């Protein structure tokens, strides 16, 4: 049975405990790109203020495996105001672009359905990075390999849940069997729709073949920076390969036609 997480953004308070719990459990350092050395300071200082609401993390990286997004929607008259929060991470897709792209089998799916990078196998070719529709998996200059959320692989194989779900104070992130989580999500969606939140939607039942880490959004997924109806890139592989083969045949034909004699010395035997 596949394990996963359900992220109910309607009860997320944007506290970022999930980001910190993830770092703590996985022993991740502060994101190197966010710190620089300053003269007469014996420690690196953070300088990553973005001005983008309360989000200074920016995006997922090799050391940021969770990233809380902040979306402000206010009209000028302040009569309508909403502030959405959404904790982004690897979706552990049922059909994973990164796994499909890896040429060395460094990226594997465990018996619990989560997708992991075997750090001792990865060669750092970085091909998995653009293969992910969500921009999750990232390269680390320090290790020369790629990293991403492991769904707390060690924890879940020892009877525990994910660190982020445990730390989440409101229960916005819940860990469990994907089928059970779906029931919970459906219930919550129905409740929200009943309360008049008609734009609420579940993201991840069918997207990219189905996501083991799926979301309840209160607005269009594009508002949360998620692609609408993403397709795992490898689904296009057959068509791409086929068209390329056709082109090859066409070029070959062009070559053969160009290099043939203009009918004069056809069929003449030529010794090599």
């Amino acid at each position: 049975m596949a394990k996963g997480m359900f992220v109910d953004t309607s009860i997320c308070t944007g506290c970022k405990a999930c980001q910190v719990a993830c770092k703590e459990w996985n022993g991740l350092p502060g994101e190197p790109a966010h710190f620089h050395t300053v003269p007469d300071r014996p420690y690196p200082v953070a300088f990553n203020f973005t001005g983008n609401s309360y989000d200074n993390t920016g995006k997922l990286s090799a050391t940021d495996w969770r990233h809380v997004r902040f979306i402000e929607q206010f009209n000028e008259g302040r009569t309508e105001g909403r502030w959405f929060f959404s904790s982004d991470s690897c979706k552990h897709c049922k059909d994973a672009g990164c796994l499909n792209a890896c040429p060395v089998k460094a990226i594997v799916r465990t018996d619990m359905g989560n997708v992991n990078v075997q750090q001792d196998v990865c060669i750092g070719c970085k091909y998995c990075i653009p293969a992910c529709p969500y921009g999750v998996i990232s390269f680390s200059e320090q290790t020369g390999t790629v990293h991403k959320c492991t769904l707390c692989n060690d924890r879940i194989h020892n009877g525990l849940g994910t660190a982020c779900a445990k730390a989440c104070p409101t229960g916005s992130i819940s860990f469990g069997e994907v089928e059970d989580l779906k029931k919970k999500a459906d219930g919550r969606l129905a409740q929200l729709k009943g309360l008049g939140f008609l734009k609420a939607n579940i993201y991840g039942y069918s997207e990219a073949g189905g996501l083991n880490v799926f979301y309840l959004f209160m607005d269009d997924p594009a508002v949360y920076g998620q692609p609408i109806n993403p397709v795992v890139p490898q689904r296009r592989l057959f068509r791409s390969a086929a068209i390329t083969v056709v082109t090859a045949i066409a070029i070959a034909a062009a070559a053969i036609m160009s290099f043939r004699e203009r009918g004069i010395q056809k069929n003449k035997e030529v010794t090599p």
Partner: protein
Amino acid sequence: MSPESQAPRWEWYYIAMYFYIGGVSAGAYFIGSLVELLNKKELRQVSRTAYLIAFPLICITPVLLIADLGQPVRFWHLFFYTKDGMPYMNLTSPLSVGTWALLVYSGMSFLSFLNVLAGEGRLPSEAIKKFHTLFNRVPHKVYAAAGSFFGFFVAGYTGVLVNTTARPLWEASDPLFGPIFITSAASTGAAALAVAMLWQKSTARDAFAHLERFDRVVMIIELVLIGAMIVVAGRYAAPLLTGQFGVMFLGGTVLLGILVPLWLTWRRAASGAANDSMAMLAAVLVLFGGLMLRISLVQAGQL
């Protein structure tokens, strides 16, 4: 489209350069192989030149590819899965399949290279002589057919590789990169052959004329494919049409790499004169345009 996909941060001097050099090598090689299939004496110089330049070019590429890796010493993982030591290939990964294809192609181009040298008596060793005999037992057409297949594969798989990702430009232009790369490989391969042949000075004129004609056809096909790609990619083609990569792509590839050479060869054909320097210029421009094509397509997708 995926607003969130990340760029692999492949350096232009490693990956785009590999696409280019690999393309030139493979393009020259499959032209040489196809020509050999036709089995015409006067075209032999084409094949021969092709085999002589394909292998040295492809030798550069592993260096580029391995240098780009985060863990270069582990490159052999591409062939053997470390956990069980068995050979490994991932059919859903163009990178995996392509790497094997590159391996086979390298081997084939090496044998072809060796065979040409051996055939011309340039390698006096006994082992080489034995090899030459054995090699020529295999029917040439078979080897040539296989050779051209692997040549096309190496030329085109990199385009498929790039398209099989979620970067907006690359996803939007799917499935045209493979065709464009093959076409460009053919064009730049032919141009490389042209340069090599002009350099030798003892050019078989007929063969050269055929080569030029081939390159003209290919360049037109390339233009059509590029046009189709821009249309298909729509607004996601913007990074390719603006800024520094716009200059590289439109100025470097389309203008200098295709339109100008086309005009030059048309001028040459029309004037009838065998203007070698114009031919050389056209060929060099085509080569330049091919490099610009790879760099702009690969780097613009990473913006």
